[in-house]
C-alpha cells in the first residue's frame, strides 16, 4: 500500500495533519522542519517517479477506495500516474519543497509558523490530488482544495484588512470560474455518462445536445467551454484574472508556490489532461487561443507600469499563463507543458528572489524606493538576473526554448487565431523583456533611493533562503535545454505517449520548420526589450516620464489595469451589493423577519398581554366568560 506513488502524494498530507494538529506541541521549529523534511522526501520520490512514469513510459492507476456510488455515477479515489502526472509531480513537489525550505528563513519572524507550514503542506497535498486525479470529480476536489489553501494563505496575515479583502476576492472570483467548472463536469457527465478520464476518452466524438431556452447546443462544446471557464478562473485568464495581483498580499513564498509555479497552472494542466477531448472541439480551442493571447498581451502592458515588485512579477505570471493557454489553443500541448515546467522554475526563482529583496529591505515592496542594491546582495542580484534572462527568453536560458516553441507553434498552426496569438505573443515578449529589466534596473542598479537607515540594514539572505534559489536557478538555466527533447523535441512521442493528444496537423512538428525570421523574432524582441530598458532606466532616466506625458491616457489605461476592477465594481459588485442590501433590508429584515418570526413573536406577546388583561381575578368576569362561551357554543352547536 505504501508505495512510492502513495507516499509522494500523502506525505504532504501527513505534514499538514501533524503541523496543523500538533503545531503547538511541536513548536515552530518542529513544525517547519517536519513539514520541510516530508516535502523534501516527497520531492525526491517524485523525481524517482519521473524516471518510472515519464522516462520509462509506464503508466498506472492506483485505486485507493470507492468514493461514492450514486445510481450510475460511481467515483473512486484513484491516483493516475503517467508522463503528464510525473511532470506535474516534479514541478509541484520540487517547487513546494524549495518554498518550504525558503520559508524557514523568510518566515522566521512570524509567530504562527506551524499554521503557515500546515497550510503550505495542505496546499501541496490538494495540488497533488488535482494532478493525480483519475476523474473529474477528484480533480474538482483538488481544484477546490487548492482554492481553499490559496484563500487561507493569502489571508495568512488575517489581521491585515487588505489581506482579508484580497483573499475574499480570490475566493469569489475563483468561485465564478469554479461554478462554470462544476457545470462543465455535470455537462460532461450528461454527455458521456461518466466522469473518469479513460471513460470520456473512450467515447470521443459522441453527439449529445442540450436544449436550453429553445436552443439546441452541442453538449460537448458547451461543457468544454464551461470547463475552460474554470481554467480561466484558476489560471487568471483575462476576465477572471483580477484576483491574482491582489493575491500578492500573501507572504512571498506563497506567491512563489501558489500564484506562480503551481496552482495557477492548474488550468493549463487540466486542459492538457483533457486534450483528447478538447481536440474534438476546435471552436473552444479557438476561444482558448484568443483569450490566452489577449491575456499575454494585456498583462504585459500592465506589467510595464506597476511599481510594486511583486505585482510586476504577478502580471508577468499572468502574461506567461496566457502563452501556455494559446499554446494549448493551437494544439501544442507539449509546448504548453514545457513552458509550464520552465516557467515554474524561473518564476518561482523570481518570486523568491523578490522575496529576498523585500526581506533585505525590511518589507519594502515599492520599486521607487529601491535601487543600488546589487553590491549589498550580490547573490540575490545574480539569481534575479538569471531568472529574468530566462523569462525574457534570452537564448540558452530555459524560457528561450519554451517560449520560442510556443510562438512558433502559433505561427505554424496556420489559423487566424494562431496568427493573432503570434502577434500578441511577440508584442508581449518584447514587453516582458522590457519590464523585467525595468524591475532589475530599478531594484538593483542606479542610485539607492531607500533611506540611509534602511540601506544600512540591507543584508544578504541566509543560506536556507539562498539554497532554494540556487536550485531553482539551476532549473531556470538548464531545464529548457535539458528537457527540450522530451517535451517538444524528437523524443516527444516516446515521452508523452498517449497522454497528450496530437491533432491531425502536428503543430509542434510544423513549428520546427517555420521560416527563419519567425524563429528569430522572439529572441530579437527580447534583446531589444532589454536594450530599451537599459536606455530608459539607466542611461536616459528622463525617458519614461516623457513617454508617460506623451501618452497619458494609454499610461493611465495600463497603470489602472485596463480598468477591469472598476468595471467589475460598477457592473457586478455594486449592483450585487445593492441587490443584497435590498434583499437584506426589505426582504429579510422587513418581509421575512418582520412578518415572520418577529411579527409572530410580537403578535404572541400582544396576545399574551390581552389574555392577561382578561384574567382579571374577578369571579363574575370568569362566570361571565363561561356564560358567554356557553352562548357561543350553543349557537355553534345548533347551527
Amino acid at each position, binding site marked *: 500500500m505504501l508505495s512510492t506513488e502513495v507516499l509522494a502524494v500523502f506525505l504532504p498530507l501527513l505534514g499538514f495533519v501533524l503541523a496543523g494538529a500538533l503545531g503547538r506541541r511541536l513548536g515552530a521549529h518542529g513544525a517547519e522542519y517536519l513539514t520541510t523534511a516530508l516535502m523534501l522526501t516527497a520531492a525526491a520520490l517524485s523525481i524517482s517517479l519521473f524516471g518510472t512514469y515519464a522516462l520509462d513510459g509506464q503508466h498506472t492507476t492506483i485505486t485507493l477506495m470507492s468514493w461514492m456510488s450514486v445510481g450510475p455515477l460511481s467515483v473512486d479515489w484513484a491516483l493516475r500516474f503517467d508522463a503528464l502526472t510525473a511532470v506535474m509531480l516534479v514541478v509541484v513537489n520540487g517547487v513546494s519543497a524549495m518554498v518550504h525550505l525558503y520559508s524557514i528563513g523568510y518566515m522566521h519572524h512570524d509567530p504562527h509558523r506551524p499554521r503557515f507550514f500546515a497550510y503550505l503542506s495542505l496546499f501541496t497535498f490538494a495540488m497533488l490530488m488535482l494532478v493525480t486525479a483519475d476523474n473529474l470529480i477528484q480533480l474538482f476536489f483538488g481544484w477546490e482544495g487548492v482554492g481553499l489553501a490559496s484563500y487561507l494563505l493569502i489571508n495568512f496575515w488575517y489581521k491585515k484588512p487588505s489581506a482579508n479583502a484580497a483573499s475574499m476576492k480570490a475566493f469569489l472570483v475563483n468561485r465564478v470560474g469554479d461554478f462554470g467548472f462544476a457545470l462543465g463536469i455535470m455537462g460532461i457527465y450528461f454527455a458521456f455518462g461518466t466522469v473518469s478520464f479513460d471513460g470520456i476518452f473512450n467515447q470521443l466524438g459522441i453527439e449529445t445536445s442540450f436544449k436550453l431556452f429553445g436552443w439546441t447546443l452541442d453538449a460537448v462544446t458547451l461543457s468544454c467551454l464551461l470547463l475552460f471557464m474554470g481554467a480561466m478562473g484558476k489560471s487568471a485568464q483575462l476576465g477572471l484574472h483580477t484576483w491574482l495581483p491582489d493575491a500578492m498580499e500573501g507572504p512571498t513564498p506563497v506567491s512563489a508556490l501558489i500564484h506562480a509555479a503551481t496552482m495557477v497552472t492548474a488550468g493549463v494542466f487540466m486542459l492538457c489532461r483533457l486534450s483528447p477531448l478538447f481536440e474534438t472541439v476546435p471552436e473552444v480551442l479557438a476561444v482558448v487561443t484568443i483569450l490566452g493571447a489577449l491575456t499575454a498581451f494585456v498583462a504585459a502592458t500592465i506589467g510595464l507600469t506597476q511599481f510594486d515588485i511583486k505585482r510586476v512579477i504577478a502580471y508577468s505570471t499572468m502574461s506567461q499563463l496566457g502563452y501556455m493557454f494559446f499554446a494549448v489553443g493551437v494544439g501544442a500541448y507539449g509546448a504548453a507543458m514545457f513552458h509550464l515546467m520552465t516557467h515554474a522554475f524561473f518564476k518561482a526563482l523570481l518570486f523568491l528572489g523578490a522575496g529576498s529583496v523585500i526581506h533585505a529591505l525590511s518589507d519594502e515592496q515599492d520599486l521607487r524606493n529601491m535601487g543600488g542594491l546589487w553590491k549589498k546582495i550580490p547573490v540575490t542580484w545574480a539569481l534575479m538576473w538569471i531568472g529574468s534572462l530566462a523569462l525574457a527568453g534570452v537564448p540558452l536560458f530555459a524560457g528561450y526554448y519554451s517560449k520560442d516553441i510556443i510562438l512558433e507553434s502559433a505561427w505554424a498552426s496556420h489559423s487566424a487565431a494562431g496568427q493573432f496569438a503570434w502577434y500578441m505573443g511577440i508584442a508581449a515578449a518584447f514587453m516582458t523583456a522590457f519590464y523585467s529589466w525595468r524591475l532589475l534596473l530599478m531594484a538593483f542598479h542606479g542610485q539607492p533611493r531607500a533611506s540611509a537607515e534602511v540601506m544600512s540594514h540591507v543584508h544578504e539572505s541566509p543560506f536556507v533562503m539562498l539554497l532554494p534559489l540556487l536550485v531553482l536557478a539551476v532549473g531556470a538555466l538548464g531545464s529548457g535545454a535539458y528537457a527540450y527533447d522530451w517535451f517538444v523535441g524528437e523524443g516527444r512521442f516516446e515521452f508523452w505517449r498517449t497522454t497528450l493528444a496530437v491533432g491531425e496537423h502536428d503543430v509542434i512538428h510544423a513549428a520546427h520548420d517555420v521560416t527563419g525570421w519567425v524563429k528569430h523574432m522572439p529572441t530579437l524582441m527580447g534583446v531589444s526589450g532589454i536594450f530599451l530598458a537599459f536606455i530608459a532606466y539607466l542611461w536616459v532616466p528622463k525617458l519614461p516620464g516623457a513617454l508617460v506625458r506623451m501618452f497619458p491616457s494609454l499610461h493611465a489605461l495600463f497603470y489602472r489595469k485596463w480598468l477591469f476592477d472598476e468595471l467589475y465594481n460598477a457592473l457586478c459588485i455594486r449592483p450585487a451589493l445593492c441587490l443584497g442590501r435590498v434583499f437584506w433590508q426589505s426582504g429579510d429584515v422587513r418581509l421575512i423577519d418582520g412578518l415572520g418570526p418577529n411579527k409572530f413573536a410580537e403578535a404572541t406577546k400582544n396576545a399574551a398581554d390581552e389574555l392577561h388583561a382578561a384574567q382579571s381575578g*374577578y369571579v*363574575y368576569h370568569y362566570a*361571565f366568560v363561561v*356564560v*358567554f362561551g*356557553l*352562548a357561543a357554543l*350553543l*349557537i355553534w352547536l*345548533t347551527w
Partner: protein
Amino acid sequence: METFLAYLNEAPGTVLPGLMFYVLAIVLLYAGVMVITARNPVHSVLFLILAFFNAAGLFLLLGAEFIAMLLVIVYVGAVAVLFLFVVMMLDIDFEQLRKGFVRNLPLGLLAGVVLAAQGIMFAISWSFAEGAKEGKGPTVLSSATNTEQIGQVLYTHYMLPFQVAGLVLLVAMIGAIVLTHRGNTGVKRQKVAAQNSRRPADVLKLNSVNPGEGV
C-alpha cells in the same frame, strides 16, 4: 310536532290551572329579576322568598305537592332565612358591588338575550322522544300520592344515588369543619382521672421550720 305549550294545555283542569300558571310564572320571573336588581339586599332576599313560593305554586299545579312542600320548608324556611340573617349581619357595601353591574350590563344583556332567544327557540320547537311523556322510570303505583310514590322508590330503586347523596352531605360536613373549626386551647376542663390519681405524696412537701428563722 307537539310543542311544550300544547302539552301544557292538555293538563287537567284546563282554564284555571292555565291562568294560575301564567300568574305564578309571571310573578316568579318578576321576583327573579328583582332579586338581582333590588337596591336593598334585604329586599333581594325577600324577593327570593317570593320566587320560591311561586315555584312551589308551580309544582303544586303539576301535582307534585311533596316537592312543593319541600321547597317551602327547606328553601323558604331554612335557606332563605339563613340568607336573610347573613345579609343583615354582614357589613357589605352593596353600592360598591353595583358599580360593576352597570358597567358590565350591556355585555351581560347580550349574553342573556342570546341565551333567552335560544331558550325560546328550543321551547317552541320542542319535541319528545318516543315514550318520553309516559316516563321511563321505575314502576310505581299510580294511584298513590306522589309522596307515597317517592317513598316507594327512594330507598329501593334510587338506593345508590341516595347513599351517595349521603356521602356528599358528609363531605360538606367535613369541609365545613375543616375550614372553620378551631380547637379551643384556652378552655379549662375538669380532668377527673387526674384529680383522682393525685396523691398527697406527689404534691405535698413538709418543711420543718424553726421558729424565728422564717421559711
